[in-house]
Structures are given as structure tokens and as C-alpha cells.
């Protein structure tokens, strides 16, 4: 499985233009025969996205916004994801929400290791993506130094809608057949 660009995808996904599938979605569906995903693979990808349970990994401010996507206004239960599992063994998705510091890096890696494949990671917020405004002795400059990240969501903190956009893009990536980040990067799971 290669990145979609290598299959000829040209466009970028554009936010909220109309209710019809946009150029990106049309291109992805046009690529389907070139991607050569079997019906079984498509069905598995569909099932994986439809109830991807996140792990409760709230660290800092982004955790409060992550909690608010469970709330009734930005309802994430419509995606089947309101069941935040406390045990990483039962979770598919690790939303690293907040700044990861040196002392917390080892527990983060331990939690990530305990998750079972296939697993995805969303680096929520500026601090998880790149260290944010804290470029100092204790903050990890980006959580992708220790885990393989699929989606980075910018913002400080990202609005709940921004996080949902990240989650929806992750679903689209999976439906398009892109493997999780650890497979693409070839790193240990």
C-alpha cells in the first residue's frame, strides 16, 4: 500500500464547500479500481472506522476540548466513538491531547505498546504535534518522536470541530486503504 499520491491523487481535501462529495472524494472513489482493494478489505476498513474507540489519554488543555467532543453539542457518538476506553488493550485510537514532557514519555510509549494492532494515533494540538509554544528542556518537541502519528491536528487548543475534522480525515484515510502510520514508517509497533 503506497500513499495515495503515488496512485495519481492530485487534489487536497477542501473544507465544507458543499454537500456534494468534493473533488477529493470523487478522486478517491475514482482511484478505487487502481487501489485494487478487495471487497473484504473495504469491508474491514469500513468496520474499523465505524466504531474506533479512543483511549483516555488526556494530558492538558486539549483534553478538555477532547472531553467536549463527547458532549452533546459536538457529539462524537454519531461516529460510534463515545466509548473512551481506559484500558489501552481495548482501544484503537490514541488521541495524544496535550503536552508530553520527558517524564511522561515513557508511560506514553508503554500505553502505545499495549495497544493492539491496528492502532492509530492522532496528535491533537500544537504541543503534541511539535512541542507547541514550549521549546524547552522538558517538553518533547512533537510526540512523533516516540510514537508513529497518523494525523496532526493544529490548534491551541483545537476546537472540537477541528478535532472531529481530524478524526473524519483519519476515517477517510482508512477507507482509502492507507495503512496505519507505523506500517508506513516501518517502525516498531
Amino acid at each position: 500500500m503506497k500513499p495515495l499520491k503515488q496512485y495519481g491523487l492530485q487534489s487536497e481535501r477542501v473544507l465544507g464547500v458543499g454537500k456534494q462529495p468534493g473533488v477529493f472524494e470523487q478522486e478517491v472513489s475514482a482511484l478505487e479500481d487502481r487501489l485494487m482493494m478487495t471487497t473484504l478489505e473495504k469491508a474491514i476498513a469500513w468496520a474499523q472506522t465505524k466504531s474506533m474507540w479512543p483511549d483516555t489519554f488526556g494530558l492538558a488543555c486539549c483534553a478538555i476540548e477532547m472531553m467536549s467532543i463527547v458532549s452533546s453539542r459536538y457529539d462524537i457518538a454519531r461516529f460510534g466513538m463515545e466509548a473512551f476506553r481506559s484500558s489501552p488493550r481495548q482501544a484503537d485510537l490514541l488521541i495524544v491531547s496535550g503536552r508530553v514532557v520527558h517524564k511522561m514519555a515513557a508511560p506514553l510509549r508503554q500505553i502505545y505498546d499495549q495497544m493492539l494492532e491496528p492502532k492509530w494515533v492522532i496528535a491533537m494540538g500544537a504541543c503534541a504535534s511539535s512541542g507547541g509554544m514550549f521549546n524547552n528542556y522538558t517538553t518533547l518537541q512533537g510526540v512523533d518522536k516516540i510514537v508513529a502519528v497518523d494525523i496532526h491536528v493544529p490548534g491551541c487548543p483545537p476546537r472540537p470541530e477541528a478535532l472531529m475534522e481530524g478524526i473524519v480525515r483519519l476515517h477517510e484515510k482508512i477507507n482509502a486503504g492507507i495503512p496505519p502510520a507505523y506500517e508506513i514508517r516501518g517502525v516498531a509497533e
Partner: protein
Amino acid sequence: MTYEGVPGVVRTKEQYGETTLVVDTPRLVEACLHLRDEEGFNMLADIAAADYLGWASGPEDVAGYIGDASGRSVSAPGSWGLKRLPEPKPKRFSLSYHLLRVGSDPARVRVQVWLDEAEPVASVTDVWPTADWHEREAYDLMGIVFEGHPNLVRILMDDDWDGHPLRKDYPIGGEPVRFSGEE
């Protein structure tokens, strides 16, 4: 507010409506006990350590120094070329205990001691139990050793961390920011 009975006071400073009592370091616990028992300061709000390495040491090091030693410098607009040196400090570290009187007559006072590098100070955990974690934090981040503290180990940094991060000679760390146009 006069604090005449407090033992060990070297200097009193009143600024911005706050009273600072600079106390001789060996007599700190005596002063704190007096303030707690006689004056009624029953709560220790905070212990703040500050490192004054590099304070008023030269034109490049300190941000507030306008001009140089030889005379006026016109390159600082709004300063009329006058030198402005911050008041020099007696020793490297200052430890400020912010005390609070909870009750019908609220009052605040700051008790300050000055320490050199590696000079220990007595712990006030027996006076106010809340000092426990504050002193651990001052030890962890500034390297000030508290004698008589029941559990002086690192609290915020990793247990095996080297160095005391908030000191002025400890680098800020982090990564240099890469700009996309550079390479």
C-alpha cells in the same frame, strides 16, 4: 504594619504595598515561629526561590541596563542616555516565604532569606506542614538544600535528572527552530 518583635530581621522593605522582612538565614525558623505564634500568620502561601546570577553584571547580560560603563549611550530611546542599573543583590539565591494571616484581620508578609551557592537553609516543615512540597520544588528546580526536611527528593523533574533547571546557568533546552526557506 511594624514587625519589631520578629527575631533575626536584617532589613525591612516596603514596596508596592508589600512588606518584605529580610531575615538572617540561621534564624529563619525562629522568625517563622514568632510570626506564626505571636503575629498569627497561620498559613504559608508560597515559597519562591529566585536565582540572581547575572544580575547587574554588565551591559549585555541584563536586559534593564541601558548604556555602558563609560557614559551616556544614545542608542536607547526614551532613556535620555542615562544609566539604570538594577539594585545589586547580596547573594545568589533569594528564598521568599509568603505568609498569610487567615482570619478576621487579613495580612500578608514576605520573609526573605539570601543564600549562596550550596548554602543550606533550615526547613520550615515543622512550622507549616505545607512547606513540604514547596521546599521539594525549590530543591528540584533551584538546588537549594533544606536541612531537616523529611523527604527531600525531586518532585517535578525525573528522579534521575541531572541539574537544576530553573537556575540561570541551566540552558533553556529545546530544539532550534528550522525554517523552511533555510536549506
